[in-house]
């Protein structure tokens, strides 16, 4: 079966910022989290997938098709929520629904009405009068009402309260239960990833530092904390990032068991959390020294 989304060697130069050789796949029926600090290139990547920004190199395939060659028809199968989730804020919710619906042959007015009620969106209220959370809800309702097979959400949970964030994430989890809908969402909130992502793509300074199954990271990767003397022994492991701490060195390694065998009681070896990965992946001790 074709991937819902496949990026191969995607690159984009934008002034001082560069996205380099980005490759990953999004299997159908799963949720993939795109995570990275500010300026990592998440939004640029989302824009490239939606063909809002033209890549300088590489290819993007959506449902097995080149995303540019057949862009309009592919976008009819994609639902999107941008970081600014809605548009034409002077219109009422109902009017925006009618406007967006007119572009999709698969638009389901009944679904739109039902979701509007479920999300408690006041259909006659102007979009400009909605809170950020309500706008995200509306963006999601618009994306879901045309039976999108691929949902692309750019930091949908940023600025939302915890209650609505949880509701949104549960809704996304429910979506993929049909086995045909896939979700790509970018975020900086790691608890969101922990809660719902099946796959994660870590971006840093425009490069993919990790792409794979989220549980592999959590189950197999480890953080090693010890004095400066452990530095030389780390070379025997597959190290993905290090930094100096007040105690000595903190390192992210790929193999928890191997780390435990090597260090025994001489260092603290623990399962890596996503926070650890976010902090340490791609970090170097030289970089720490510079900063």
């Amino acid at each position, binding site marked *: 079966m074709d991937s819902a989304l496949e990026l191969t060697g995607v690159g984009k130069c934008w002034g001082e910022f560069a996205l380099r050789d980005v490759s990953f796949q999004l299997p159908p029926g799963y949720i993939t989290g795109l995570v990275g600090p500010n300026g990592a290139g998440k939004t640029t990547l989302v824009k490239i997938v939606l063909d809002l920004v033209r890549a300088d190199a590489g290819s993007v395939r959506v449902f097995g098709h080149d995303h540019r060659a057949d862009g309009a028809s592919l976008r009819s199968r994609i639902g999107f929520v941008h970081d600014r989730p809605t548009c034409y804020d002077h219109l009422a919710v109902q009017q925006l629904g009618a406007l967006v619906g007119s*572009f999709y042959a698969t638009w389901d007015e009944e679904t739109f009405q039902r979701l509007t009620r479920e999300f408690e969106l006041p259909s006659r209220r102007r979009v400009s009068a909605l809170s950020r959370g309500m706008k995200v809800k509306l963006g999601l309702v618009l994306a879901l009402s045309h039976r999108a097979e691929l949902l692309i959400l750019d930091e949908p949970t940023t600025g939302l309260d915890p209650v609505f964030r949880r509701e949104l994430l549960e809704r996304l989890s429910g979506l993929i239960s049909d086995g045909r809908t896939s979700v790509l969402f970018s975020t900086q909130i790691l608890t969101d990833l922990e809660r719902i992502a099946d796959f994660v793509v870590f971006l840093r300074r425009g490069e993919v530092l990790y792409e794979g199954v989220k549980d592999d990271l959590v189950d197999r990767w480890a953080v090693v904390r010890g004095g400066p003397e452990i530095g030389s022994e780390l070379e025997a492991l597959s190290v993905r990032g290090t930094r100096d701490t007040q105690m000595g060195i903190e390192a992210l390694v790929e193999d928890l068991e191997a780390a435990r065998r090597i260090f025994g009681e001489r260092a603290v070896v623990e399962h890596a959390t996503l926070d650890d990965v976010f902090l340490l992946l791609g970090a170097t001790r030289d970089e720490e020294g510079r900063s």
Partner: protein
Amino acid sequence: MKALVLKDLRVLRPWWWLIVPGHMLFGSNGIFSPQTFFAMNVALAWAFTVILLIIEWTQDADRFTTSLPVSRDDVVRARYAEVLGAAVGATIVYALYGRVLFVFATERLLERWPDTRGWESVEGLVAFFLVVWLVSVAYLPFFFRWGLAKGTWLFLAGLAPVIVGGAAFIRWVSLPWTLADVAEVMGTAVTVVVALALAAALGWLSLCLSVRFYDRRDL
């Protein structure tokens, strides 16, 4: 493309009611000077395009619209279709003003405003349409290449010398100045056909440029 045009009409719906009072207030304001009236109506016709572009720009609608199942070519073509529709509509309104004036005005009144006869003449209407259309098709490539703010500034900076220089040149070589002058030399039918053909050609060229610019732009 049809969906895009309908979308824009929906987007503008809250301002539809402004069309009639807007015309009455601004269009009629220039009634004592045919040139001012002409310019006012051109400005009002152009306001349709500009208001839409401002809404789109302030709402960052490019990203939203091009994420919908439409091609960028469609987005550009829809904008040109709207501009054409606005130019035709404005020309009809302009002609209606003339009709109303000629129905209700007395001969004595018309003698005081000899230039107003152009409002109902074929050359006058074609000239009006041409101005609205040509200003728009000259502007749109700037908009699609650089966006609203930068595109407008560059357009104004580039257009002013062209208008001033062109007018000076035409006067210097003593070419016929208005379409009515040209029609006197070439005949009305030939003048109208040539003028509309030129407008179509320039529109086509402008469209090709806009499609090319917008296709390459990062949104």
